[in-house]
């Protein structure tokens, strides 16, 4: 079972590494979308500083959503999902492995790009550490919640729009508490409560979303 779990993650990472620019789309989108804000709202540093946490998080959310469609679709269309489903690994753990691989491919690059973009937006330095912690807790939650949307729309042509409708409302709490934590740190209001809620959200997503996604995949495989 351990072999199957890590074999699945290893294959997804290998496919992403060979996917060329396709696997970088998420982080490239993130960088471009954030860079548009100084152009759009003007280079006034006080304004940018004020909106930096929100801009970074909204763009991270949209970038993650862009990449959700690929989580199960390719494996479903070429029959790999049938093979994976017929392994000893329960589908719930398959979902967990796919979500973890998805986070490594999309969430982790976002975390690496975020501090650079925060400098670009003139975000105050008090917020940097909390921004990174909020991303570390928040982006895996986005991948896990996204797995439900991806599993429900698997096999649908043009499932991308549907995924955003399904998943974006569920992303709202992550956005609120993550931005709240970063702003709390910047304005000296304290960030602990917001970070704890984010951590709670991650644990809840870890415990609940694999069941929902696995049930949706079972229906797709019928």
């Amino acid at each position: 079972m351990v072999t199957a779990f890590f074999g699945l993650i290893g294959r997804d990472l290998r496919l992403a590494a060979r996917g060329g620019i396709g696997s970088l789309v998420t982080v490239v989108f993130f960088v471009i979308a954030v860079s548009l804000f100084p152009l759009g709202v003007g280079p006034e540093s006080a304004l940018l500083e004020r909106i930096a946490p929100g801009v970074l998080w909204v763009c991270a959310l949209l970038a993650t959503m862009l990449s959700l469609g690929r989580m199960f679709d390719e494996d479903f269309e070429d029959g790999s999902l049938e093979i994976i489903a017929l392994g000893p690994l329960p589908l719930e753990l398959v979902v967990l492995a796919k979500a973890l691989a998805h986070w490594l491919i999309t969430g982790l690059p976002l975390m690496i790009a975020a501090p650079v973009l925060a400098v670009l937006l003139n975000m105050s330095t008090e917020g940097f550490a909390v921004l990174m912690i909020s991303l570390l807790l928040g982006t895996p939650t986005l991948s896990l919640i996204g797995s439900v949307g991806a599993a429900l729309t698997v096999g649908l042509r043009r499932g991308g729009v549907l995924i955003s409708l399904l998943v974006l409302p569920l992303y709202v709490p992550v956005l609120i508490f993550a931005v709240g934590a970063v702003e709390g740190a910047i304005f000296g209001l304290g960030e602990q409560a917001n970070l704890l809620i984010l951590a709670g959200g991650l644990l809840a997503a870890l415990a609940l979303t694999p069941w929902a996604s696995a049930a949706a995949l079972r229906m797709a495989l019928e």
Partner: protein
Amino acid sequence: MNDGTARFAAREVACIRGERPVFRDVSFALEPGAGLILRGPNGSGKSSLIRILAGFLKPAGGMVAWGGENMTVAPEAHNARCHYVGHLEAVKAALTVAEHLAFWAAVKGFAKADDNILAALDLEDLAEVPGRFLSAGQKRRLTLTRLLATPAELWLLDEPSVTLDGQSAARLEAMLAAHRAGGGMAIVATHAEIALPGAETIDMANHGISAAALLGESADAAAGEPDYGTW
């Protein structure tokens, strides 16, 4: 009919897809080393039956049992003992032939695949070739090596010889013979002639459900079949 002690048995299995009844009353009992061929026109439910036997689909009626125990009791145990080869090749453009084998072994819970199985389907020269450069027949042969990559007692094959040339089809027959000689079972749905000596044949056309029969008008078409109230 009591086939509860057979290694792998189906009893009066029925299938409904999208509110359309596909087949009913399919029964068989297989012992180790046995083979079963499914025949029938397009849409007669060969693929659906294979998917029921693999556990993807739930039968609308009847049951499938392994050693007398209903298959749905322990689906993961059933996964471990069967290989399913469907219409899709599951070949990734970016992965090499050898990497596919390693992944398929890992997914079944094995650290690595047998080294010499590529030779069984004449793929050893292609081990480092990525999937995108393989021809349709080569992809099919790669898919079939999955059967040898890890042991499984039951092979469920849905049109396994499509796109294979004569020589490769002969290799597939040899694989099937060796598998059954080792106590394995094989269930093959096919239109082609695949030699499976001593295998039973089920003609799915005999298990179809005509619209007339459904309306209860045609007693002769449904002669000898159970009444619809049972499923």
